[in-house]
Every structure is written in structure tokens, then in C-alpha cells.
């Protein structure tokens, strides 16, 4: 269940943010913030046009992947026929082809689902095997991959160490490809929360409950800080609203959101979903300078504007207060 009270670390982060705001209004001692670029691209359907759309997105961000090892990390949770739980396989395949055609040395698809052990059976049921003849050759079950011990760099959580799969630790670029969904514990699950899937069930079990005890928001922020080279492509063509991430209702938003700064990407998704990103604990923790790339003014939006595509996602039952303030979007508050 969600803990409605702030943890000590969240209080500290909030206090830091508040003092930072005071400092900014008093005298600007920080260097100017470089805006993060985020794309919002309309994609009404899962069809062949996705292949060109995804390639254009990657090119727009000038990602140089020539000779690099790219790992695509979709969100594969459970499979139910009429649901929108998982990242659509066609989108993942479109990204696979885009990075290959742009000269990546290798492109792997990798995921470690949090509830079920039989990852490839789920991928099969979810349609991943139908996207290409060699799916098993390019897929790594992160739950069962060999691991290496690492230590969180920014240490938001109580985790002193983590064992992470060699496939993701060896990636030159980790591409988080989540579904745009609400989440009954964190409010929203997007490209940063999707990183839970890199934590190996073979070490931590199913579910990866150690992360819950160590603080969900804090662990997400720790994981985000561990991977220096990331990109995100969020599947918002059909997302999920209400009691996500599993039992919610499909929600058609008809778009993809992408960028190299996962905080900015997720904050943008929140605005599209009509969720206040400042209410999402892990975004506050990971944003670095006081709320830097959470703020709309610190995001360089390309493609569609938020105003043109925003569509309110029904909120999860335990999060009735996630809506942005009434002034949001007018004065650039968030």
C-alpha cells in the first residue's frame, strides 16, 4: 500500500527544493539550466507507420549509436488478451529496427518481469515472437542473466548494494520503453519506474519485494542514477488509466513521448495525463537541482504541444490529489 506520509529522505528533498527555490528567488547562484529535449509525436495506431515514426524520433534526438551496444527495455508484466499492460511488441520491434539501421553494433531486447517467472512464455503470449523470426536470439531474460554487484551512486534508498544483470550494465545505451500507465503505488509508471524490471528476480525474487521495503520512490531514483546513458520511448498509443499497472482500463492517448532525460520525459507524460509531476515522489527525488527538469519551462518540447494532446487519465484510487493546480500550463508553473 502507498505510504501517505513523506519519508525522512523525501522531507529532506522537499526542504532542499524549498530552500533552493528561496535561493533562486533571492540571488541566482546556480548556472542556467540547459533545457532537456522531449518529443511528443502523434501515433494513432500500432501499424506499419510506427517504423518510420520511431526512426524519425531517434534521428530528431541526434542519437549517435554507431558501434554502440543498445539494450531496449520494454515493460512486460503479465499477459491478458484485452488488456494494455505491456509495451506493444510492434513498437519495440520498430525501435529495434531503427537502432539497427542507425548503425548500432548490437541491439538487444531485455526484460525481467516482476511477478511471473516464465518470461519468454509471457513474451510469446504478448505477441513478441511474431515481430521477428529471431526474437529469442535477441532477447535476454534479465531475471536470469548473470549479475554484478554495484553500489547506488546517489543513494536515495536504503539499498547499500544491488546485483544487476550484466546485459544492462554492459549497455552503451539503455532505452526504457514503458507503457504510459497510472500506478496504484506510485501514481504513474513511466520510463523511470520501468527500470524496476532490470532488477533480477533470480536474486531478489518475484516480486522484487526488497525494493518495496527499501522505498519504492527511492529505489527508482537510485536505479535511474545508475545508468548514465539512457533514452526513453513511452508507449502512449494505448496506455492504462485507473487502477494500473495491471488492473486498470485501456486509455487511448495516441502518442509517443521520447527523450534522453528520463525525468523530463516522465514529467512530460504526466502533463499529458493531467497528473502533477511534482506529486510523483521519484520524479522529485531524481530531478537533481530543485525540480529542474520537472518544470515545463526547463523542457524543450518538440513535435506536438502538451495542450494539443493532453488527455486526463483516470487517477488510481489511492491518489485522488494528483491533478495539477488549476493554473498549471498557463503560467508555466509545472
Amino acid at each position: 500500500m502507498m505510504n501517505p506520509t513523506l519519508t525522512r529522505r523525501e522531507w529532506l528533498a522537499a526542504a532542499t527544493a524549498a530552500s533552493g527555490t528561496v535561493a533562486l528567488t533571492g540571488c541566482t547562484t546556480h548556472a542556467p539550466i540547459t533545457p532537456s529535449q522531449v518529443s511528443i509525436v502523434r501515433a494513432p495506431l500500432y501499424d506499419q507507420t510506427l517504423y518510420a515514426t520511431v526512426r524519425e524520433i531517434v534521428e530528431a534526438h541526434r542519437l549517435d549509436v554507431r558501434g554502440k551496444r543498445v539494450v531496449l527495455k520494454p515493460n512486460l508484466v503479465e499477459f491478458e488478451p484485452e488488456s494494455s499492460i505491456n509495451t506493444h511488441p510492434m513498437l519495440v520491434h520498430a525501435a529495434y529496427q531503427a537502432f539497427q539501421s542507425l548503425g548500432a553494433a548490437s541491439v538487444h531486447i531485455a526484460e525481467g518481469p516482476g511477478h511471473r517467472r516464465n518470461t519468454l512464455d509471457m513474451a510469446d503470449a504478448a505477441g513478441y515472437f511474431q515481430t521477428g523470426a529471431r526474437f529469442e536470439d535477441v532477447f535476454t531474460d534479465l531475471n536470469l542473466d548473470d549479475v554484478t554487484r554495484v553500489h547506488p551512486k546517489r543513494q536515495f534508498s536504503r539499498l547499500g548494494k544491488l546485483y544487476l544483470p550484466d546485459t544492462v550494465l554492459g549497455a552503451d545505451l539503455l532505452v526504457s520503453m514503458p507503457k504510459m500507465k497510472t500506478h496504484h503505488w506510485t501514481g504513474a509508471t513511466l520510463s523511470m519506474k520501468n527500470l524496476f524490471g532490470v532488477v533480477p528476480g533470480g536474486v531478489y525474487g518475484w516480486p522484487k519485494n526488497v525494493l518495496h521495503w527499501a522505498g519504492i520512490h527511492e529505489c527508482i531514483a537510485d536505479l535511474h542514477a545508475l545508468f548514465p546513458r539512457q533514452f526513453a520511448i513511452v508507449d502512449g498509443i494505448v496506455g492504462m488509466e485507473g487502477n494500473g499497472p495491471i488492473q486498470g482500463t485501456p486509455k487511448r492517448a495516441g502518442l509517443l513521448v521520447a527523450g534522453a532525460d528520463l525525468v523530463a520525459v516522465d514529467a512530460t507524460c504526466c502533463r499529458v495525463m493531467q497528473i502533477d509531476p511534482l506529486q510523483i515522489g521519484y520524479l522529485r527525488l531524481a530531478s537533481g537541482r530543485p525540480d529542474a527538469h520537472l518544470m515545463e519551462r526547463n523542457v524543450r518540447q518538440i513535435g506536438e504541444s502538451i495542450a494539443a494532446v493532453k488527455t486526463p487519465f483516470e487517477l488510481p484510487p489511492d491518489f485522488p490529489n494528483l491533478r495539477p493546480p488549476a493554473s498549471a500550463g498557463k503560467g508555466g508553473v509545472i
Partner: protein
Amino acid sequence: MSIDALIGKQNPDGGWPHSRGRSWTEPTAYAVMALLAAGERDRAGRGLAWLRATQRGDGGWGPQPGIDESNWTTGLVALLPPDTLGARLHRAAIEWLMGTTGHESSFEYRLREWLLGGPKRPELEFAGWPWIPGAAAWVGPTAIAILALEKENTRRPMHVIRDRIETGRKFLVARSCEEGGWNHGSVGALGYASKPYPETTGMALAALRGVHAPQVARGLAVAHRLLSECRSADAQNWLRLGLAAHGELPHGYCVPQNLAYRTIPETSLSLLLSDASRAREFFWC
């Protein structure tokens, strides 16, 4: 899929990977069971030597050498007969299991909950086993630990072991899904009932052998339905074992032909189940 295929996947150090790579405790324990059942004592012996060499100082096994914490795979290793693993090592594994519970059963956690005055949650009342110490108990590791302790209690009856088994079984019964069967251990979320999974339904039923309760009856009904629907080797293995534990595996049942056996545990368990009497030796006496 054959014993030869299993042998071909054995690493030079004597252990097995999940599918490729370094040796892990879980696939090695399953592979050793399958090889012992098939009479491949030499190859099994190398696997046993790997297991003996990787037991940790606290009596448990970590998921892989180099991971500095014992975990649920200790229960799997404890399913091996003491005379093959080594009596002293086996006893230490049982002691590790007896000393391990989910964090929600700890005095510290219960005191905290009492002080906070939260509502009493019936599903947290009984102690099960976690995947890794410091986390909550879940269906999978609890089922494996019960199977190991039940065998130990048959060999060496003790009240304390009997009590842990009973409490663990109450944990499983309390975690049964509303429609019957079991998932990873979540009865519901925010008022919504969670659905059962085939593999964990089979695991729980195996651990509840001999238990008569409405939850078991509903679980068996769900297991029969899932057995006819699911096309996962892992799920088929555990459903067969769970139904067999209650004498309900349909007579002459044939596993679907087109299943993909992708991991060593899937392959090993399937080989083991091809001879029902040998499978019984490893999972219950």
C-alpha cells in the same frame, strides 16, 4: 529434451546456468535431482560437489556464488537426500530454513504496525518464507520450504518443524485467490481481486498435500482448468506436480507436444516428472 541435453549444459565447474552463462544454485539443484533420478550418478556427483562447495557459512545457499546472501534456493537444495548432499550440510540448510521468515512476521515489523495502529490484515497473520531475507514472504519460496521441511519431518520428526509447516500452510491458505488458486502471493490490490497463476497454483498445491480445506478444493479446480489451457513448460510442470500431490492428475495425462523448454529448471523438472515415482522421492517421501 533429454538427459543428454541436460548433461550437455553442465558447466565445467559442475554447476548449471539457468540457460547459458555462469552456474546458479537453482538450476543446479533441479539438474542434480533429474540426474539422480535417471541414474546418472557421475554427472549428478559433480553437481553435488558444486553445491557442497558453495554452501554459505550460515547454512544457506545464495542464488549464485559471489552473491553474499543466502536465499530461498536453500529450500531447493534441502530437497536433496541428506545422504547424497551430506548430512551435516543438509542439517545446516534445514536450520537456515527454520530460522527464516518473511519480514512482516518479525517482531520489529509487528511492533511497528501495532504502534501505528493500522488495521489487522489476516493475510499477514502467518509466517511464510521470503525469496530473500529482509523481504516479505511469498507463495513460491514458502511452498519450496514446506516441501523440504515436510521431508525432514518424516525423517526426523520434531514439533518445531511440524509447527513451521503448519503455519506455512496456513500462510498459503490465507493467500489463496478469491476465484481459487494462487499467484505470487497477493490476494488483491485496492479492493480488486488478483488472478491466479498456473505455476504458483501448482507449487502451493504441492505444498498443501494432505490438507483438506475449501481453498485447496478451489485451487484444484483452478489447476485442472489451467492445465488444459496453459502452454508454458514451467506452468505445466508445477500443475502436474500439484495435482499429483492430491491424486488428481488425470490418468494418462499427456503434456502438450509443442512446449518450449527454455531453462534448466524447466527441463529438469519435466524429466523428473516423467517418472512419477522418482518425482515423489524428491518432493515428498
